[in-house]
């Protein structure tokens, strides 16, 4: 509702402004070009998120000072704290980094974003910035048309910077021309009412533009043209700092509990810093004067002094909040609780993750793991075996021998409740995420989708098996009981082998390739069953109908094994994408397994 009204109001306000003042049009166009530049810049950096940024983030966030520095440096380089926030939120919701590290990055990003003020005040206003913008745009656009992802990324970054510079130029020109016609400083409000009013204006401007950076440029250019007073500019900067958290909050709405906690930390930090800055604004002004003197900044150079102020109050915020970071994380963990999730609801898939290819892949992998967890409950039930038993270290034969009571599980119902909708969500997420991906990244997603398909197939197979398994579990015919126990043992062994691979910790012996042993064991079982069936029928120990059931069900067991192993090979291979591909490329296919079996027979 609010959104529906807000847009027409903004449009009408802007249209009226354009009608009465061409200078206002120039300033607004400057803001628009600047924001477009930010979008291009973000697009450019996203092109490089296919590994470099992610691996850097993972490596550089294990200690608080590291995550803090990462926040400062990455935001300084990218000149966008919102991009850093979005990346951090997506990493946290995919559980790739802990909340404390995320909070550290956000704190650092707050300081990093102040470098923008320095760049604009120190460089953007002193030189004819449009002179740099033009060649950047030309080179940038040429590079955007190149096929290579890397060159395209550089192109977007270059043209993004070009647009930023051009935007600043228009804003500067607009305010300069404004000076002749209208003096906005007549609207300046003195004292605390003025501070509160301008904090609110700064906040609103940032919420509307979704960029504290744009607000800051607007403030600095207006300040340079003497269209606002220095005091009011300081208040606007404080407002902009609070407003920027709105972007993070909006980004976190669709994310999981940790993403929301991080947005909470962001809000607490910026709000607390703003309160401290408002309360101590006069002392801060004195401190800024002192620092400016020391740095050799002229007394009337208010734009650079604003940059000093912006950095100073964010730095004070960090110094004040840093000792409480762990407490803050604890309080946030306690107050922001996870939404009650049923096992059928996705936990890792959210739109923030959708933005970054590697994180999206990791989110899909984790969600498919949950799908497998739900499915293995059903499969174990179908085998009339306890899942904890299968996953324990007790010999599988022992578990099978002990579990003699058929488990009454409605596979269809369980499938509909815990697997179907979750798989649907995964498939939908993949379709949306893969549009922005490179071919090898989409291939990885398609493999994961196939792994999900294998899980669904496995449930269908266990449904076919369930009836006979339950019947012959308590059969009077000892031979049939034994044969069906063999099937249960075989399948339970496959589930356990998958669990071993899943739980491994850098143990060379249990890579996904070790799952090939289960393929071999299944073929061996099928071969021995053929011999066994002949002997049982010949000796009249089972009826022909029984032998057909057994043959069909061993076929199902073989299908189930294939489904589970294929799934395991995709889901549990870890490390770089290249390493995973290499591992998968040398796992043995059916013919190779047969060949190996022949070879081992000959040698024995």
């Amino acid at each position, binding site marked *: 509702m609010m959104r529906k009204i807000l847009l027409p109001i903004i449009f009408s306000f802007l249209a009226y402004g354009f009608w009465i003042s061409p200078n206002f049009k120039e300033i607004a166009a400057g803001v628009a070009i600047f924001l477009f530049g930010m979008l291009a810049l973000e697009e450019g950096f996203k092109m490089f998120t296919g590994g470099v940024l992610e691996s850097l983030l993972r490596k550089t966030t294990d200690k608080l000072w590291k995550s803090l520095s990462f926040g400062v440096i990455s935001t300084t380089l990218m000149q966008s704290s919102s991009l850093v926030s979005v990346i951090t939120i997506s990493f946290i919701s995919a559980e790739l980094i802990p909340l404390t590290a995320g909070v550290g990055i956000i704190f650092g990003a707050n300081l990093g974003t102040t470098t923008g003020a320095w760049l604009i005040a120190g460089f953007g206003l002193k030189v004819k910035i449009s002179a740099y913008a033009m060649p950047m745009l030309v080179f940038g656009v040429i*590079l955007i048309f*190149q*096929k*290579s*992802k*890397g*060159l395209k990324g550089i192109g977007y970054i270059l043209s993004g910077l070009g647009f930023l510079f051009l935007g600043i130029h228009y804003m500067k020109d607009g305010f300069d021309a404004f000076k002749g016609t209208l003096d906005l400083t007549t609207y300046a409000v003195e004292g605390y009412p003025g501070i509160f009013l301008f904090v609110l204006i700064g906040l609103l401007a940032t919420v509307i533009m979704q960029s504290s950076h744009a607000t800051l440029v607007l403030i600095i250019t207006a300040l340079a043209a003497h269209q606002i007073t220095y005091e009011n500019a300081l208040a606007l900067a404080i407002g902009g700092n609070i407003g920027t958290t709105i972007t993070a909050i909006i980004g976190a709405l669709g994310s999981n509990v940790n993403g929301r906690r991080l947005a909470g930390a962001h809000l607490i930090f910026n709000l607390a810093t703003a309160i401290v800055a408002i309360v101590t604004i006069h002392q801060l002004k004195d401190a800024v004067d002192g620092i400016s003197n020391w740095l050799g900044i002229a007394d009337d150079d208010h734009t650079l002094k604003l940059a000093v102020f912006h950095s100073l109050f964010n730095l004070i915020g960090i110094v004040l909040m840093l000792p409480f970071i762990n407490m803050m994380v604890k309080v946030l963990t306690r107050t922001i609780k996870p939404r009650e999730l049923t096992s059928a609801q996705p936990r890792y898939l959210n739109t923030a993750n959708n933005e970054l290819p590697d994180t999206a892949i990791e989110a899909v992998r984790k969600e498919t793991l949950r799908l497998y967890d739900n499915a293995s409950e059903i499969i174990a039930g179908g085998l009339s075996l306890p899942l904890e038993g299968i996953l324990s270290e007790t010999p599988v034969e022992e578990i099978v021998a002990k579990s003699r009571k058929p488990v009454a599980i409605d596979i269809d119902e369980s499938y509909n409740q815990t697997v179907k909708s979750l798989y649907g969500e995964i498939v939908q997420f993949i379709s949306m995420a893969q549009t922005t991906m490179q071919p090898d990244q989409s291939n990885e997603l398609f493999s994961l989708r196939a792994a999900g398909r294998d899980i669904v197939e496995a449930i269908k197979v266990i449904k076919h098996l369930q009836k006979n398994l339950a019947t012959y579990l308590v059969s009077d015919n000892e031979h049939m009981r034994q044969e069906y126990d063999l099937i249960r043992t075989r399948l339970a062994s496959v589930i356990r082998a998958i669990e071993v691979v899943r739980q491994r910790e850098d143990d*060379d*012996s249990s*890579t996904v*390739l070790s799952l*090939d*042993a289960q393929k*071999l064991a299944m073929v061996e079982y099928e071969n021995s069953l053929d011999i066994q069936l002949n002997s049982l029928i010949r000796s009249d120990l089972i009826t022909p109908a029984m032998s057909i059931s057994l043959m069909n069900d061993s076929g199902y067991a073989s299908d189930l094994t294939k489904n589970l192993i294929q799934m395991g090979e995709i889901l549990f291979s870890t490390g*770089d994408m*290249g*390493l995973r*591909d*290499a*591992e998968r*490329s*040398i*796992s*043995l296919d059916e013919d*190779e397994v047969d*060949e*190996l079996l022949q*070879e*081992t027979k000959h*040698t*024995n």
Partner: protein
Amino acid sequence: MNIHKLIKKTEAFLNSDERKRKQKRKYLKEVIHKLKKHEKALKVKLDKESSGGAKEELEKEIALVRAQRKKGLKNLKALKKVPTGK
């Protein structure tokens, strides 16, 4: 160096098949190395094992790892540098 050449060089570096091939070989070598290590460890285990059943299982596992390693070496050979014909 003119811009065109520079763009070409950068592009070649960022996106070349050659780089992909080299990377594939590197990863494959890593996996083969892991398998070799694993095979050695299994052989040591086999030497120490006295029970017949366990010995047979270990022998099977060794044969499997060897088959995978062989396949890896075959793939590695196929990824050897092909002359570009220039």
